[in-house]
């Protein structure tokens, strides 16, 4: 145990910093910029069963304090997981988390059962990607669909499972309690916020998929509010906070609001050493204030 360690289910993370899915590929390129073993866990981009080409260009749009993306889960599917991704992440000493996504319940079930043959510490189940047309709305926007998915995947593969929802999931506290009641280990709050851009020249939506996902500092207050509300509603499973984090100050806010650990996303795109800096600053903070991180979780809710 050290001052920064934190727990998700039966897992102990050396520190609460995890990359958000899709913002560091599967880690190979990031390893040129930081020692991935410093991380609380490594987390891959969401993989799907079959290769996905993703959405056509344009895929990016810059906003005042962040960006919008319409990547559309481009990935090379299961074969690449076996030939490239797993060999790479299994060479790391830190915890190994894999994110999965699908367009049907059966795809999630199949992926989870295939993953049983691999030594992973956790699987994050992405039920909230706004950028895929097939399947229409993300699972987490439709409670009956989400419930069906949760019931189907909970028994497959005994690995620690995290459900990643949208910050816009209606109503977010109910969904999180449903996830807890179904026996999942943690909930990640959350994915990008849906937004729209109109191209004035073409007088049409800028993205071919029309709606795209907003991320970065612009969404931090929304993510923080969501974490706060869910923690306040009395949930027992750990909350993983995600949205707009780029500094140790942001991390502390999320922890104080009730997050057990956090995921850093868009900030990696601006400075690939962000997570490394945050971990160092967090250590400094805890040492200077002589406290352990665990003591801070949810502390902002105290009544006095």
């Amino acid at each position, binding site marked *: 145990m050290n001052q920064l360690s934190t727990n998700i289910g039966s897992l102990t993370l050396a520190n609460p910093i995890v990359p958000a899915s899709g*913002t560091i590929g599967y880690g190979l*390129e990031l390893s040129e910029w930081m020692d991935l073993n410093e991380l609380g866990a490594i987390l891959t981009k969401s993989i799907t069963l079959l290769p996905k080409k993703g959405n056509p260009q344009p895929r990016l749009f810059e906003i005042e304090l962040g960006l919008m993306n319409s990547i559309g889960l481009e990935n090379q599917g299961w074969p690449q997981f076996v030939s490239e991704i797993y060999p790479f992440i299994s060479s790391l000493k830190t915890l190994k988390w894999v994110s999965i996504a699908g367009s049907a319940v059966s795809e999630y079930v199949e992926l989870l059962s295939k993953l049983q043959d691999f030594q992973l510490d956790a699987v994050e189940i992405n039920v909230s990607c706004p950028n895929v047309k097939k399947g229409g709305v993300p699972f987490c926007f439709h409670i009956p669909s989400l419930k069906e998915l949760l019931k189907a995947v909970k028994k497959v593969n005994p690995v620690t499972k995290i459900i990643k929802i949208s910050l816009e999931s209606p109503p977010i506290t109910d969904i999180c309690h449903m996830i807890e009641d179904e026996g999942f280990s943690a909930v990640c709050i959350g994915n990008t916020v849906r937004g729209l851009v109109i191209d004035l020249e073409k007088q049409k939506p800028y993205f071919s998929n029309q709606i795209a996902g907003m991320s970065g500092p612009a969404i931090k207050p929304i993510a923080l509010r969501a974490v706060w509300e869910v923690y306040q509603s009395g949930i027992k499973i750990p909350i993983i906070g995600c949205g707009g984090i780029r500094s140790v100050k942001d991390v502390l806010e999320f922890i104080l609001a009730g997050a057990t650990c956090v995921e850093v996303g868009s900030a990696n795109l601006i400075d690939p050493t962000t997570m490394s800096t945050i971990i160092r600053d967090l250590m400094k903070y805890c040492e200077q204030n002589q406290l352990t991180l665990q003591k801070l979780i949810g502390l902002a809710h105290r009544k006095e």
Partner: protein
Amino acid sequence: MKHPVIGTVKNNRWLTPNIFELMVAFPDHSMEIKPGQFVELQCQGNHPVYLNRPFSPFMIRHQDWYFLIQNKGKGTNNLSHLQPGDKITMLSPLGKPFLPPTADNKILLIAGGVGLAPIYYYISHYLPLYPKLSITLLHGTSFEEDKIELPGYLDVLQYYFHADQSASQTNSNLFQYYQTLPKIDFDTAFVCGPLPMMRAFSRYFTKENRIHFVSLEMMMACGLGFCKGCSISTSDGMKSVCSDGPVFDGSELDWNLL
């Protein structure tokens, strides 16, 4: 381990009404950057932008890096206002370089507008290493006033310049101009400029079975291969322009999709 480096602006001057040369000293930057590779610059200023912006070095002399930048929007406008003494953060080196030449290669370099930056860096990097290289440089701009005087090597290059005299921004006229020139003998061609221009040259070179590489430009978020924001579809599957490129074998690209 790579790390972001902080440089100090030494000079910033307009070369043409729309193009400026930014000179930055990066004292602790020991890592070599090869022609065709690029960097991401942070563009803080009066109107800070969230994402970094990709640029190719134009020239490097000791610790001084020169960038040739066209004023386009917020980010480049911020850079144009940098003053000597201002600090700037850079991620480097990024992407895959141009294929290095062998000692006595005959090279054709084609640049449209500020596409001259990586092309000129190729010249200033490789000519001192391989003095027997035979290089032809073809540079095109929209207008005569956009012409950039080469800082050196003019005496050892075969040099052609052409101005479209129109603001079409397409520069495919450079290709028409190329066809009026006496036949240029070359082993490998490198092309960097606006997409329609690169498309015209690449289609022609592919048909003629000529080895040629293009440097693609795509809106980027990370420039590091993390996000898949800059993906293009190629005959060899999806590729990230920032990490699989920006240099691609022109004959392997599907120009209809670009």
